[in-house]
């Protein structure tokens, strides 16, 4: 008789082709299946980690570490969720650990010093700065991209993670909650605050864009 987890696993295996690839890696150490998973997700994991950590080199290291962990834990893998949910849970854990250890180092390094042009400023301050800097001339796309990047960096880690998963992975609140170990209601609130914060910072640029049109 099939247990509940067997049934759930089969459901995911039927619905999610990447679960089937992962099961092939698990059962046969199939290098082709693993390469397929890497090709499918590597760029997405790297982009998410870059936006999350703002450090391309660290993002590459953690991307590699993510897939090494996937491979190492293949024998204990249980298809209890979509493959992407499981994968991004690993990414989230790695990113949180990296951010924590980096935060500890930074606390010592920047004590008593200015944290740089747009680094680690409260949202209100960042909004005032960006608003004050608003040039009369048209904003170039590259400048706007920089402002968006700074606005994302100004969000808290959890808001940023939830926002990136929602925006770029099109994950539902339930899946994001599973990745981040939070309830869908908490994710709903987190994403609402993230969007409000982004709006607060970027609104002057949207107005400038309107005037330009």
């Amino acid at each position: 008789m099939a247990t509940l987890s067997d049934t759930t696993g089969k459901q995911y295996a039927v619905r999610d082709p990447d679960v089937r690839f992962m099961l092939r890696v698990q059962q046969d150490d199939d290098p082709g299946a693993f390469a397929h998973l890497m090709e499918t997700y590597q760029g997405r994991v790297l982009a998410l980690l870059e936006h999350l950590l703002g450090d391309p080199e660290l993002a590459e290291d953690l991307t590699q570490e993510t897939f090494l962990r996937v491979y190492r834990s293949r024998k204990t893998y249980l298809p209890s969720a979509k493959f992407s949910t499981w994968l991004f849970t690993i990414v989230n854990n790695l990113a949180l650990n990296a951010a924590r250890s980096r935060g500890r180092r930074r606390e010592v390094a920047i004590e008593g010093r200015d944290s740089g042009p747009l680094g680690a400023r409260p949202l209100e301050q960042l909004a005032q700065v960006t608003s004050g800097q608003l040039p009369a001339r048209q904003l170039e796309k590259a400048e706007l991209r920089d402002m968006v990047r700074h606005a994302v960096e100004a969000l808290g880690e959890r808001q940023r993670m939830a926002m990136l998963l929602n925006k770029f992975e099109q994950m539902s609140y339930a899946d994001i909650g599973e990745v981040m170990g939070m309830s869908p209601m908490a994710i709903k609130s987190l994403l609402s605050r993230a969007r409000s914060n982004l709006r607060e910072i970027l609104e002057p640029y949207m107005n400038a864009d309107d005037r330009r049109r």
Partner: protein
Amino acid sequence: MPDESPLPADQREQLVAYLDGELAEEEARRVERQLAGSEAARREVQFLARTWDLLDLLPRRQPPGELTEQTLSQIRAESLHPGDWRGRVGRWARRGGFVAAWAGSLAAAAALGFAAVRAFRPSPSEQLLNDLPVIENLTEYQEIGSYEFLRALYEADFPLEEMPPESADDQDV
């Protein structure tokens, strides 16, 4: 004149969830009714949606070509030498093991020394037990006063216990 006051947090949450397609049908209809009747809500939705669209400007570079190959090489290496992936852990364990071995040796030497002292040197209570027959008869032995005489009594199996106790008169003398 449009209402510029910000929406309450719970209403904004509903609008964001509406944009994300996360609301049940009934809730979605309620939000749509709110949007139809509120200029502020419509503006809010517009701004939230446009902010979200701006995120598309974030750069998304392709992973460097060698990243896949590096990862696969490492996996191949780990498959050939399964212990290697724990390299870092292993190094720390080895370092820790070296220190632990030193500490263990010191502790073992200290324990051995303590045991040896305990084995060869009787404890104070053991010493007292050994000396108990002498201590019990000390008064008599002191009265005899001569070691040779005591030895002669011992060799003759003379029971010291049977010696008459000192009388009060004797003590007075």
